[in-house]
């Protein structure tokens, strides 16, 4: 084949595969929305599921998703932030730091069902007197383990992006290391940290496999953290696979996708603001 023909052919193949990726996304979103958007109404969002989810709404799963997400964040954000501060500002380049990094990398690659097994064995069975067995606490603690790597990495990136001249300026004024970290580094890294948190929310809102083994899957509105619950994604799985109410599944899927879309938009917006600020 002549080089010029090959060039043209290759270009078209690459264009087609890239466009294919976009087409797949449009197809999935389009299909789910086509079947599900019509289902969404005020009533669908605010009434409780009836007959195992085949009728009624998804109110309890919306409430559970919000409580579950907040609890997970309350547990994981402080730990993730502290870990990131240690790794960027304090850790030396020694075997300890290397081991910690290895731990974070490995944790990021573990499948959610394996986290589910861990959460089941530790939080649901062994810590039952504290967590109430299958419950929001057990699910949230499991979820916290899962998003920790994302939180640590994004926070690290944000902290690293703070120029060294800021730290030097702070030291020159006589501030201690801790004062510099708390008053100069963290405030300046905040937009990046917030983006990381928003992205983690996206991940746990869609999480299902680990929660099947830890959250319990009740269809009622939980009144205590030690009660079982089911999130929107668990609810979707159940009505699609166990009840066979596909219209309810599509409705739930549409709400779930809209949530994820909003979360992505929010993350991008914060990121953009941060970029404007640093270039200005």
């Amino acid at each position, binding site marked *: 084949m002549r080089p010029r023909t090959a060039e043209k052919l*290759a270009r078209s193949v690459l264009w087609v595969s890239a466009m294919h990726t976009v087409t797949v996304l449009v197809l999935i979103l389009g299909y*789910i929305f086509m*079947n599900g958007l019509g289902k969404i109404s005020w009533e669908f969002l605010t009434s409780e599921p009836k007959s195992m989810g085949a009728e009624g709404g998804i109110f309890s799963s919306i409430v559970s998703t919000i409580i579950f997400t907040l609890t997970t964040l309350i547990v994981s954000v402080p730990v993730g932030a502290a870990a990131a501060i240690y790794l960027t500002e304090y850790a030396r380049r020694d075997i300890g730091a290397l081991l910690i990094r*290895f*731990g974070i990398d490995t944790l990021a690659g573990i499948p959610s069902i394996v986290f589910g097994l*861990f959460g089941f*064995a530790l939080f649901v069975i062994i810590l039952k007197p504290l967590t109430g067995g299958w419950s929001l606490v057990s699910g949230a603690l499991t979820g916290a383990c899962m998003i*920790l790597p994302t939180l640590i990495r994004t926070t690290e990136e944000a902290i690293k992006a703070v120029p060294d001249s800021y730290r030097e300026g702070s030291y020159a004024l006589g501030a201690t290391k801790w004062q510099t970290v708390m008053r100069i580094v963290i405030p300046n890294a905040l937009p990046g940290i917030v983006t990381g948190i928003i992205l983690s929310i996206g991940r746990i809102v869609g999480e299902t496999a680990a929660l099947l083994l830890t959250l319990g899957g009740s269809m009622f509105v939980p009144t205590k953290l030690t009660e079982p619950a089911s999130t929107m994604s668990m609810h979707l799985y159940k009505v699609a696979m166990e009840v066979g109410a596909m219209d309810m599944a599509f409705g739930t*899927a549409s709400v779930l996708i809209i949530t994820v879309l909003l979360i992505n938009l929010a993350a991008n917006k914060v990121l953009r603001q941060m970029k404007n600020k640093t270039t200005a």
Partner: protein
Amino acid sequence: MYKKILFASALIALVIIVLTAGFIFKEGVPVFTKYGVGNIVLGNNWNPTRQGYGIWPMVVGSVYVTLGALLLGAPMGVSTAIFLAEIAPKKPGSSVIRPAIELLAGIPSVVYGLFGMTTIVPLVRKMALGIPAYAKEPLLSTGYGIIAGSVILAIMILPTIINVSEDAIRSVPKEYKEGSLALGATHWQTIYRVIVPAARSGIMAGIVLGIGRAIGETMAIIMVAGNAPVVPHSLFSTVRTLTGNIAIEMAYSSGEHTQALFATGIVLFVFIMVINSVALFAKREVKP
């Protein structure tokens, strides 16, 4: 004082890894010692009510759908990465394709599962019913199985493969490209003779990470795979994966059955650790 608290927080990731491995092994190992590792891992008979704990069908199932996903997803992912790094003009590149990939990565796996079971599964069923030899076999003509699983997983691993490969391609030094172009090579010749070989280990890392994602995926795959615990013997066969085995049976298992599910978890864990180590190793090779 502060430093100690920070250090303890940083250690938590490592502690969780150790605890996870510890608990899974503690719960799963007794079944291995009682029935023998070979009988569990290579055993064909999964029938927990009669002490049949062979998980070979699930090992094969996981490997098949992962291979299928790789065959369909890797070429697509790598060419999209090349496109984004080398060819894409600003306009569809960063304003359309990249957000699309981001969103693809953000869609919950149950949504992929729902999409698969309502579109791909009926399509495969129609195909199977069109083939006389398969139409009569109830297990081969449901539409659920290897094909539907592979297609859905192929879509789900695209973002991983694209992002990691694109990074690798972008980090190839500009001089390589300029040198090749200066010698009179066309852009495409430069891409596949200079840039892609130079980014090889990074692209490999992306593909291996994709394999890790595919093997670990649970929800989407159980919604389209059919989940019969039998070694598949045709592309149209239903399959059950290691992840599916755990997710489906955990809710109603007890005693030794639960331990056997943890044993399934051990096998999965070992798979993932090997795959991730390969990926980390390949990634490290990238830096010159």
